[in-house]
């Protein structure tokens, strides 16, 4: 399988969830790093800026939307797909206003996620080209 050029960062406090998800993406040729909380995520973004971040909204410590705000402030080209456990429209909508690419609801359909990532990557590419 072709190695995808996407750099993906998965952020969720549910370690088993993210690590399994990362492994599954890996199996689909998508390189995914994981972060278990907001601080780790921001750190990871600084070390190696990803194209796409899959970000859980509800986390202990720094909330997803805050991470989103920080990332978007420094790296507006990074596309963020929000994950909400509660499917709360409010957070989803708020996230969209803050510049998230889209939001998805847990549990995820992996194929749908990959599809969404593809769209996001294209947008990210465009964003980078515009710069």
């Amino acid at each position: 399988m072709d190695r995808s050029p996407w750099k993906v960062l998965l952020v969720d406090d549910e370690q088993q969830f993210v690590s399994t998800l990362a492994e599954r993406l890996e199996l689909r040729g998508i390189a995914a790093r994981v972060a278990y909380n907001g601080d780790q995520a921001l750190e990871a973004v600084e070390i190696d800026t990803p194209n796409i971040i899959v970000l859980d909204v509800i986390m202990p410590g720094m909330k997803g939307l805050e991470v989103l705000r920080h990332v978007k402030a420094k790296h507006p080209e990074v596309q963020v797909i929000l994950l909400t456990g509660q499917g709360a429209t409010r957070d989803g909508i708020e996230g969209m206003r803050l510049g998230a690419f889209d939001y998805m609801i847990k549990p995820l359909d992996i194929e749908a996620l990959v599809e969404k990532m593809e769209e996001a990557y294209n947008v990210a590419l465009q964003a980078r080209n515009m710069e």
Partner: protein
Amino acid sequence: MDKAAAPLGIKTSPPPDLHGPRDVAPRRYKVLRRKFVVIMALVAIVPLIAMGAINYLEFQAALSREVQSPLRALLYKTKNTIELYLAERASKVSFIAQAYGFEDLADETTLRRIFKVLSSTSEGFVDLGLIGDDGVQVSYTGPYALQGVDYSNEAWFQLVQVKGIYISDVFMGFRRFPHIVIAVRRLGDDGRFWIVRTTLDTSQFDKIIAAMGLESDSDAFLLNKKGVLQTNSRYYGDVLKQAPFTLPPQSYEINLVDTTDPAGRDVYMAYTYFSDVNLVLMAVKSRVGALQTWSAVRGDFILIFVVGTILIFLVANRLTKGLVQHLKESDERREFAFREVEHNQRLSSIGRLAAGLAHEVNNPLAIINEQAGLLKDLLNRQADGPEKERYSRLADSILAAVKRCRDITHNMLGFARRMELAIEFLSINEVLAETLSFLRKEAESRDVEIILDLDPNLSTIPSDRGQLQQVFLNILNNALAAVSDKGRIQISSKDSGQNVLVSIEDNGCGMPKETLEHIFEPFFTTKKGRGTGLGLSITYGIVKRLGGDIDVRSTPGQGTTFTVLLPKQGKLEERS
């Protein structure tokens, strides 16, 4: 995520006493109304009665005084006249007795001359005579032949010897004519005595009484102390008849009593006893006549009282009716409000529970999902074999079960979306566009045409963005569910004075009337097994909380139009 808060500042359940009666019994209002009317009527009527009674008594007393005092005055005057009349006559007789000696009076010629002078100066004298100490008439002048009559056994003859002067009752005597005797005793120098006696015609009394000028319903007369009439009376018989009633107690003042005469008339009886003479002067006046004015006034009183009472009752009844009606309505409104609050609270707590539960379940569910997915991914990379197929099936069924669980939790979350209001100034068009962005993909995939007809000049309104999105999302979701592929949804917004009006019209399946009546009720759903039946009830609740209104029209087979009305003034004050 925001903690789902209790709606509109009611953080705790209201104290039970605020609930009021659970069932607003109509009897309660009837009783209340009756109480009000009775109390109001009493408060108004009791003073009326008191005033009426006081007026009645005062007026009657005043009227009585007015009737009585002329009667008293008249009686007093008449008594004086009679006393004067008698005293004058008696003094003349005394003068004759003193001025003339026995021999002078015994001489008939002298006696006649004296009598002539006497009767020319005073009216009423009938005769004049001299009686010796043996009681025998010595000389006499007058219309009767009384010469030599012996009076020694008469009661007056005894009395005059003791008293010196005697005035008799009216009597017939020897003359068969009502008359009165005045006798004066004179003691001679030699110790012998003689008596000068004169008779008075009692018609003089009648004249005096006639001079009182009595009204036709009144009567006045003289009685002696035995109750025998001394003058003619209008109603109680002629002179010397026994009066048909017992005499009132003795009094020399003028007394007035309310009594009933023998004919049964209510009368005022005024009377006075004479001190020197055995006489009682009495005047009787009909009370009916006297109080005729009073009767008329009493009629007015009663009329005013009755009309007043009726008016009071009418007014009390009318006022109370309005008051109780008002009370009833506000009770009902309160009852309704409490039910609504209660309902909201119930929904809100169910919502919190559902949200918590969904959150807790979703994370492990996500893990199961990923692990089973990974299992499947790994199996896919294995060489084909019977084992692989079996494991793959198992993984699929796990994934299918997870999907089912996900649908359930998502439904629960949809129902839990009730949050605190966060009011800000919003462009409704913007909110509509944002909301639409969530659905555009589904609409595109089903080739549903979405037509926007938004008024670009719409003013911003204070409202809650999240809640409004929820509202539009719910309605749009329903519209999407209603239309078939290639259907059409038209979203329009416009200004309508006080409000901003958003209508969402679809050309979908529509709803029958029975469904339409229930769509805003919680747990009502036509999507059996898929919907929670809360979407529109929550939508309705939100719109109401935002101070707006929602209206729905639907024709089966032709489509549905939802119209949301949002106030431009918003409900800023209701932030909790």
